């Protein structure tokens, strides 16, 4: 970690989120505060509907909080204009989705290069870089294949390459193993674990898949829109399960 680098990639402070529902308002987050450390794989866990994905969305600026502060790399997301926020996300945050969200008509290397291409990197340079990443992730022989020609685990590895292509400081993963079998899930988590130990990067995984808890450096548990435990130990979780 650089000498003057702050300890946290991202912090959220007392955020709340309300959604209108007809004439009512549903409050899904009740003053959540947490921070994400560099060089660690942090897991955000909790039952369905507890607000994990809402926290992830707010932390990445894809959803705005009703109140509270969100800061990533020292930048207050609520102070950025829409276009600046999009550019900020493109350059500093990598995304891995539950359903991979690969474009079916692009090859693996083209899919992995999207963030670079969107940032103005020439097509050939972008796909060359994404191809190198796919090589590192063990997908070298498959880089010219279309997503439908790849297994679920391979598609998620393409998504990891896409998330890492811009060398982001924060990588967020939404249920990355939910659609995978145990073996593929373990393989994907090993790659994320390796990526998280780069001291200039942090990985946040939202999950309720207890098979992958062992990869966490830190576990934050949520329930009913609140953080109920931060820094859970794996042994405690094993007892609970």
């Amino acid at each position, binding site marked *: 970690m650089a000498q003057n680098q702050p300890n946290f990639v991202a912090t959220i402070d007392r955020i709340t989120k309300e959604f209108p529902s007809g004439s009512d308002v549903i409050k899904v987050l009740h003053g959540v505060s947490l921070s994400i450390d560099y060089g660690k794989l942090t897991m955000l866990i909790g039952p369905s509907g507890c607000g994990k*994905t809402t926290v*992830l*969305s707010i932390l*990445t600026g*894809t*959803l705005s909080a009703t109140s509270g502060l969100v800061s990533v790399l020292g930048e207050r997301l609520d102070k950025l204009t*829409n*276009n600046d926020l*999009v*550019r900020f*996300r*493109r*350059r500093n*945050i990598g*995304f891995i*989705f*539950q*359903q991979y*969200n690969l*474009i*079916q*008509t*692009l090859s693996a290397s*083209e899919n992995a290069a*999207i*963030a670079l*291409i*969107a*940032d*103005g*990197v*020439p*097509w050939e340079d*972008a796909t060359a870089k994404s191809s190198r990443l796919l090589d590192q992730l063990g997908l070298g022989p498959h880089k010219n294949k279309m997503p439908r020609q790849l297994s679920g685990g391979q598609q998620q590895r393409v998504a990891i390459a*896409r998330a890492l292509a811009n060398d982001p400081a924060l990588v967020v993963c*939404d249920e990355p193993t939910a659609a995978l079998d145990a073996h593929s899930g373990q393989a994907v988590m090993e790659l994320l674990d390796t990526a998280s130990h780069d001291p200039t990067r942090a990985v946040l995984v939202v999950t309720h898949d207890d098979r992958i808890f062992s990869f966490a450096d830190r576990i934050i548990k949520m329930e009913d829109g609140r953080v109920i435990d931060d820094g859970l130990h794996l042994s405690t979780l094993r007892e609970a399960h």
Partner: protein
Amino acid sequence: MKSMLGMVGIALKMLMGDPVKYFGLVFGIGFSTLLMSQQMSIFVGLLTWGANPVLDVRQAQVWVMDPRVKQADQGEPMSDQELYRVRSVEGVAWAVPYFRTAATLRTMQGNIVAITLIGVDNQSMVGLPDDNLASSVSAIRGRNAAILDKNTAHLIWDAGHDPIGEVVEINDNRIAIRGVATSLTNFTGFPTIYMKYTDAISVTPPQRNKLSFVLVGGEPGTDPEVLAKRISEVTGLKALTREQFARDGTTFIIENTGIPISFGAAIGLGVLVAIIISALTLAMFIAENQKNFGALKAIGVTNQQILVMVLSQALLVGFIGYGLGIGGTAAFLHFGQADPSLRGFKSLGEIVGGVGVLVAVIVVGSAVMSVQKVLRMDPAIVFRG
């Protein structure tokens, strides 16, 4: 700019990777372009038929007629004195009589056919079609000799029959066909027969007045419009320039036939097909890719980039579809020239350009409307199940 080009590349790969929608859009736009441009070309061609009797007489700068006349096939006979009155107007270099009437022709084989009979000035022969003029002039020098429009000869005799030398009857007067010429197609579609003015009026039933029109050429440097106005003022007759009278022929068709409505309906149908196909297919394409667009927005693709992506998809299919449609119309009109009913029809630059603008407006409008939902979409949608 580089990022836009890259995203356009991604957009086009997204589109072409879905062949059903890609070809659906291309052929849908192609079909509607064909429908619009072909129907417009036929419509304009039909309108031109209304102007052709006037346009066929290339030498006359001004047409003089009874004030009640609205178009060339509706001549109201004037006294021969009017010819001399017109000749006396300042700026008139020459003025000649022109006779135009409907008649019935009987062939020696017994065929009876409605024709347009034209009588041209005995000396100058002003009023004959320009092609092969010298031989046409010599062909009708003799008494009761006539020239026939060769493109309509098949309406009198079998196709391929050589009419030269045939003797026909008009009102019991024997007339020998001595030559052929090429006339522009007229709206009535009747075969056209040209004779000397004196011969033409002598083979038609007796009538006090027979002069249909006076054709006028102005002195060098005289503005035809000014000359026409002066002739009107001096003689009290209606005088129009060649262009004005030709336009009146097309206006007559627009105002007095159902052609604009029937062709307007077909052209409107083409526009509707283009709108429905492009709007629905693009909307379906975007709806099916909503999650992908959500992911792109989350990853960091801006709304402007998404708009450019969708516009590039729309413009590509619009361009290819338009090319196919215009190509189809060009082929139709090219091969249709062999058919007398399509002779002279062509796709004007205004039609090609106008349909292009229409297609561009339709596909861009459809794309902009379809993409609105994506532009307003919260990128967090991608995290929802």
